[in-house]
């Protein structure tokens, strides 16, 4: 006796009338979902009881742009018509006005009109002229749009000219939607036919244990069908944290375990807290529009609640104030310091923390903050990224404490076996240091930077004890851990990848 799944049996029994059927018929007669029918047919065909024949058909339908073109005509057609009405010759600006097209449509129209040879562009002195000879005939693309109209048509029914039109339109987004449909026919084989008799005469087996069967005790009299435990099942996925967010969560708890307290602050920040309070001179290259995002409206904010701090910082930049420094020696602009920017470094949060009334001394603080930089996005650059930054504040802290903290980060967070310190430069710290961590298999990785806040930073903010400032390159650390080498994948939109990321 051949062991059959109940779905296989159902399918066989349907097919016994006429030996073959299409999906729709089977669905109607069995009431089974498509997925179950395909599974059963797959099993049966693998055992040679059944053959599945597939025929593909493509259906066409106008998309949102296509429907708009149906109504308004193609943008290049509209452009050409208007140009002819206006005498067939005009400058680019005139053409734009005449065409009454949107900026986007206008550009599209020029591109296509040139490609189709409808439009000649001529330089006359420093003027660029558009020249149109005559109204062009209707193209195959336009014919196709008209012929599709509101209906759905099969590709097979199209004339060869309309197919040409389809090729032309296929490069334009949302004009024609193509939908592939596969028609399947299920046909019994010789072996399948023989099997049917066997199946018909076999006693009914039970596939599902039900509450009724349990309550009534009937299950004792019935046979529960054996399961094919190798049979494939549908996929299910757990709800879980985004992989990079999860990594940042881990980091967060490690920092908390090391005694760090979280700092918070706004994404849109004053140039004052992001730069000036950190002793970055106002014409520092990192403050140019190539390196920092400025807000358009409102372009500046109200710093009056911080006027004492602003005055201290101003005096420090200009001549050192009471810090023992010579200062930068330039005229500090109050306009500039009020400007609003997108936070470009997590250190802005540290500057805010130092003037927060909740600041505790001694104290350790951290932030995991989104920061922004006007880069062009590619595999190594993002316009927004995450920074782990923080401060340690307390009487008697020294440069050696700073090295100790960095060493602790390298071993506890990156799992490093060796560390190396090198001199580095940040406008707001002195001495400054860069941390490299070594891990077997990964080699040396530049992993963080740190320093003692300059007196020009701390004293104007009213802090008279040493402050250690540190930052860690968390994006790189995560990339190293997961083997990602395209930084854009931190913000991945690949649902399948996210679903399959392991948690250990």
């Amino acid at each position, binding site marked *: 006796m051949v062991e059959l799944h109940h779905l296989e049996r159902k399918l066989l029994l349907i097919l016994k009338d006429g030996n073959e059927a299409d999906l729709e018929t089977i669905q109607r007669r069995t009431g089974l979902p498509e997925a179950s029918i395909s599974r059963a047919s797959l099993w049966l065909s693998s055992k040679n009881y059944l053959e599945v024949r597939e025929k593909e058909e493509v259906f066409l339908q106008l998309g949102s742009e296509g429907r708009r073109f149906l109504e308004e005509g193609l943008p290049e057609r509209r452009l050409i018509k208007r140009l002819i009405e206006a005498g067939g010759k005009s400058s680019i600006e005139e053409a734009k006005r005449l065409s009454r097209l949107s900026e986007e449509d206008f550009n599209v129209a020029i591109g296509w009109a040139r490609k189709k040879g409808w439009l000649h562009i001529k330089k006359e002195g420093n003027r660029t002229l558009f020249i149109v000879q005559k109204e062009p005939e209707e193209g195959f693309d336009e014919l196709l749009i008209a012929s599709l109209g509101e209906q759905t048509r099969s590709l097979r029914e199209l004339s060869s000219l309309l197919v040409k039109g389809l090729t032309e339109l296929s490069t334009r987004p949302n004009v024609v939607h193509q939908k592939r449909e596969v028609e399947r026919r299920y046909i019994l084989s010789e072996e399948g036919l023989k099997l049917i008799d066997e199946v018909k005469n076999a006693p009914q087996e039970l596939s599902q244990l039900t509450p009724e069967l349990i309550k009534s005790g009937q299950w004792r009299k019935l046979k529960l069908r054996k399961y094919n435990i190798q049979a494939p099942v549908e996929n299910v996925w757990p709800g879980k944290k985004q992989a990079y967010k999860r990594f940042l969560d881990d980091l967060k708890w490690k920092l908390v375990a090391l005694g760090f307290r979280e700092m918070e602050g706004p994404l849109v920040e004053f140039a004052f807290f992001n730069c000036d309070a950190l002793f970055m001179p106002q014409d520092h290259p990192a403050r140019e529009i190539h390196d920092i995002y400025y807000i358009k409206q409102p372009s500046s904010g109200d710093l009056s609640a911080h006027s004492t701090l602003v005055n201290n910082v101003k005096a420090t930049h200009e001549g050192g104030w009471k810090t023992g420094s010579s200062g930068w020696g*330039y005229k500090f602009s109050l306009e500039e310091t009020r400007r609003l920017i997108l936070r470009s470094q997590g250190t802005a949060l540290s500057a805010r923390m130092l003037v927060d009334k909740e600041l505790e001394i001694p104290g350790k603080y951290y932030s995991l903050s989104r920061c922004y930089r006007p880069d062009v*996005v590619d595999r190594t650059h993002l316009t927004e990224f995450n920074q782990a930054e923080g401060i340690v504040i307390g009487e008697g802290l020294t440069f050696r404490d700073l090295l100790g903290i960095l060493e602790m980060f390298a071993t506890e967070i990156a799992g490093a076996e060796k560390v190396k310190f090198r001199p580095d430069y940040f406008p707001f710290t002195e001495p400054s240091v860069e941390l490299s961590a070594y891990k077997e298999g990964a080699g040396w990785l530049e992993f963080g930077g740190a320093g003692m806040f300059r007196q020009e930073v701390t004293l104007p903010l009213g802090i008279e004890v040493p402050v250690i400032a540190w930052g860690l390159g968390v994006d790189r650390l995560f990339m190293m851990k997961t083997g990602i080498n395209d930084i854009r994948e931190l913000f991945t939109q690949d649902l399948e990848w996210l679903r399959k990321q392991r948690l250990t």
Partner: protein
Amino acid sequence: MPVIEVLFNDLQRLVKADLPRNLAELTDILSYVKGEAVSLEEDALSIEIKDGNRPDLWCVEGIARELKGALGVEEGLREYVVKGFSGISMEVDPRLENIRPFIGCAVVKEVHLTSEVIRELMHLQDKLDQTYGRRRRRASIGLYNLGLITPPLQFDVAKPEDVSFVPLGGEVEMTLREIVESHPKGIEYGHLVKKHERWPILRDSKEKVLSIPPIINSNNLGKISEGEEDIFVEVTGTDYRTVLNTLKIVTLSLADRGEEIFSTQVRYPYGEERVVSTPNLSVKEVRLDLNYVNQILGLSLKVDMVLKLLKRARYNVKWSGGSSIEVTVPCYRMDVMHQLDIIEDVAIMYGYNNLKPRWPQQITFGKISDFEAFSDATREVMTGLGFQETLSFSLSNDEQLFRKMNLKGEKAVELLNPTSLRFTCLQSWLIPSLMDFLSKNTHVEYPQRIFEVGDCVVPDEASETGVQNIRKLACLITHSNSNFSEIKASLNAFSINMGFKHQLFESTHKSFIEGRVGTIFVQKKQVGIIGEINPLILEMWGLENPVTGFEVNLSTLMNAT
């Protein structure tokens, strides 16, 4: 940070020591100048200098000067002297005061110019112009063959049409305006003078043009070529200190090749007339406190040790008893503003890796913020309800936030200087980026349930910055049967687990289907919206399954519960 191209053998010759060719070992040595060996091919060595405030290190001579000290080849102050007055004076026109007020000049005699030296000079000039000179605004450099110039010189102004000359590398004479409008350097730097009626111009006593600072030199006078030459260096700019510092760096780099420096006199007419002699190569005296050194570094160094380390860092030093050390700071160390800058040099010469790290003794309690804890709780509930968390950019654009959500007339907080059409403003709500996510996953198995907790920014006149950060939670469900009941069930579960009671009110919102959308209220405060996404929007995103979702303001929600 600046990357300096030098010749390996030239560096060895200047340092007077053999250097390793292995990049890691070379980097260990270059650490003394905060440098990293980026590449070494045959003789061509690229060094990245990480210090943006040490322009004296942006040339091979400067690097060699410091390495000689660190490696013990030559210690203490390297003195530079002005040999005498060159006899050249410069008159400055008062009308320059609001255009480009400052100039400094020097003469270096009998410079032996080889093609390598010229190449390195050009390289240094460009680095200084771009970075320290802020793309020639703050300062820009000009080099000339002194033999071709007839002093005295004048730094004055001219109307753009009134003067013409042949720009460097060109053949035909052009007016100043033609140069600014059509010469590559004119196009690049023209904005620095264009807004003025008259432009800066440098001429000699025969009215021959040296250059139009900061744009380009003349081809006749402003070209230096191989051989023995007397060089005239000129730096103009908008910041007095930067101009003089830049001049110093260029002249010292020439002097380090064994040539002698002569001064010039600049007569300034602004306010009270004064005559300034440039370059100024005077040193600075700073008093360093030994106790402060030890306090910062966590060491107990003896005075002899500190004196030795300072000399290796090329300072001259004198112990004046007790804990007081007099430090003579060389003229090129413009970065020394505070004792701390000298203390860092002590640490560098001591060796960062010779300092024993220690963990701060203070005991502190770690803690995440209350709001972060609240956000984390919402994430826990959402993942428990079967939603996959996503992470999106918080920068967005009007198209995504509004037009593709069927909204009109809404306004986000925009950037002044966006770098692409994709990122022009800050997101004001989260559902659009989740829609974007779904549109990228139409081929992936359904059902799809996603959520995100993210920061949004909206205008708020009451706040000091005029805008407000709002953290929101949004989620979407999509599959062939997704509907209002399903998303409402998720919201109910969310409410119960977050410990609040919500009410729904019928409302209208163009992003959702009419009659299938509600506003969510908690404690009489509006906290969010729930509904089925309008099919018009689904079409725009290319989605073929119904989508339902909700979005809540966590900031308001936390205060309401």
